[in-house]
């Protein structure tokens, strides 16, 4: 093909991409810009007033600084657990389950069926004082009476989030493990590497992107969630998403809600940036 066809190809590609870009612009970029502008406005008499005020941002740090930090912590812990369990599951499906590997992944995907609220209520049924877990603890003599500390705390929120997000973590990791060449693993063994050495020096370096993707998906979802902490967190498991929702709805304070959203976004990007450096800094040798 001649060089003259290159600009034509480029124009054609741009035209093909235009609808997708238009949808992205209309549904995502434009609303984000509008929301960013509103974050500098004020609310007077329950009406938005254009302004260039930083009050909403100041308020985020003064009023919600502690909640923001605990949200980042909850999101990070949830994501790390998802990555750890997700890797174990995906590793078993790829290297240990043989022809049942794909079936295991299918099982993981099937757990997504049934919806999100169903899982929240399932965990309420499991962790409540008359729940399944307490029944086992009492029946086995581990506890003399039902424990009321299993539910309505940070731990319950993280457990429910991990349950919901684990399939989303498994899929990118499994995708990367599928691309690991068996010949390289056999070569490592032939050269005397132990199973542990093969895992650390051959397999994990080749699925860093998948691990990071799993962390990012789990973290971003967990950090922005406001339903799970509301139903399972009680008074001690609050997260900033709950307050963002309230600023937009109950308090009709859109500037505050918008500012909190952008600060949450910035904090999340910071966490992902740090984690990204750890996960993908070094290219596999």
């Amino acid at each position, binding site marked *: 093909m001649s060089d003259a066809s290159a600009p034509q190809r480029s124009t054609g590609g741009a035209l093909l991409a235009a609808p997708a870009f238009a949808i992205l612009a209309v549904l995502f970029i434009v609303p984000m810009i509008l929301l960013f502008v509103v974050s500098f406005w004020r609310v007077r*008499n329950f009406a938005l007033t254009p302004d260039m005020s930083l009050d909403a941002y100041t308020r985020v740090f003064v009023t919600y600084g*502690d909640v923001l930090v605990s949200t980042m912590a909850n999101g990070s812990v949830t994501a790390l657990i998802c990555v750890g369990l997700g890797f174990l599951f995906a590793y078993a499906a790829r290297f240990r389950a043989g022809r049942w590997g794909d079936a295991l992944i299918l099982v993981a995907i099937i757990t997504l069926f049934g919806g999100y609220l169903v899982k929240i209520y399932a965990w309420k049924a499991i962790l*409540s*004082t008359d729940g399944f877990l307490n029944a086992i603890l009492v029946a086995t003599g581990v506890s003399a009476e039902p424990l009321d500390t299993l539910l309505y705390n940070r731990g319950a929120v993280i457990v429910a989030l991990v349950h919901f997000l684990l399939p989303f973590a498994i899929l990118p990791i499994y995708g990367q493990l599928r691309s690991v060449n068996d010949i390289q693993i056999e070569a490592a063994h032939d050269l005397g590497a132990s199973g542990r050495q093969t895992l650390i020096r051959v397999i994990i370096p080749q699925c860093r992107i998948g691990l990071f993707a799993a962390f990012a998906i789990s973290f971003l979802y967990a950090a922005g969630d406001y339903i799970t902490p509301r139903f399972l967190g009680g*008074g001690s498991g609050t997260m900033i998403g709950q307050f963002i929702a*309230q600023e937009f*709805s*109950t*308090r*009709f304070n859109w500037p505050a809600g918008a500012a909190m959203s952008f600060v949450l976004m910035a904090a999340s990007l910071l966490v992902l940036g740090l984690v990204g450096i750890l996960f993908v800094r070094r290219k596999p040798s």
Partner: protein
Amino acid sequence: MPSSHVKPRHGLHRRGFLAAGTAAAAALMLPRSAMAGTQLSWIGWQGYDEPLKAGDFLKDNDIDLSTTYIGSNEEIITKLQAGGAGQLDLISIYFGHIPILAGAGLIEPIDEARVPGIDKIFPDFLDIDTIRMDGKLYAVPFTWGTLSMIYDPNAIAKPVSWNDCLKDEYKGKVSLTDDITGLITTWAPIVTGTKTPTRLTAAQLKETIDFLIKIKREHARTLSPNYGEATDLYARGEVVISAIGWDAQVAFAADKGKELAFVRPQEGVMVFMDTLAVPSGAPNRDAAYKALAQAISAAGQTVLASDLTQAVVNSDAVPLVDDVNRDVYQYGDFENLFRSARFDPFWPLQDDGEYASYDQVQEEYQRFLRA
């Protein structure tokens, strides 16, 4: 869906799919008026639209009902402020927000002559100042209730005071629900001695919130996101008494096979009322008035009582509701009710230097939620 209605896999080929998709898209693009009669845009709590859906009201009046459900009353204010006025026809909202909406010109006065049956509404609800301003009625009462103390009669003796929930034997077994106005108006008189709990100085507000934080940390099982969740705690035996409750929980629990009881403690309880109002510039005002009349009619109110266990405002509906509903709401004895229950005015909308404004109340309440 019956299995006989499931198409075979090969039944929908690509061309058929495209044709079906085109037809569906065309149907979606049709003007609503081409699909049905007058469209009525209604916004409010889920379930409050049931009186409109019951019977043949919509069909008889050729109305296509479009509903938007809310998670909080304030969403309606936000929606109207954000351009909803001129698009919405009928709203259902807490009576305390009516002065905000009327003050901002977001709702219009009710033309009482266009609401048949309005004379059947109990005067105790129709004639309160919050919905009548300058001689004009801005909202029509729709339902009401009291935020009473709920307790498990099979677990504890009948309480007499809100302070009973703070007894040591109930630690960790107290129900506490996320209800900003309910919690503060219930506890401010007890904590500060005020007679009007929606008129609090900054110091009184702080004192009340500090006390609520203490209840949350030291006495409550958890902070329930709504009264339905709180009722579940009673059903599971996790709580036996409440620091805030809603009389309808007794009926909610009965549906789950759990016996609960309510009491209006000696310090008094708050009365709430939800209303119906017509937004300014409602595009289908005639349909809105028809719907309003249907919602407060005896038939509509009976649906509200049977489907949602809500209290009725129409005196003609009282003989039609079931015994459980009549027992809970005691329609025949409003004089006795209002001895222990009160309508509080809404919070000041602006900071007047003396009393905390609604915004300041919400800011302090966030401290309670974060604690």
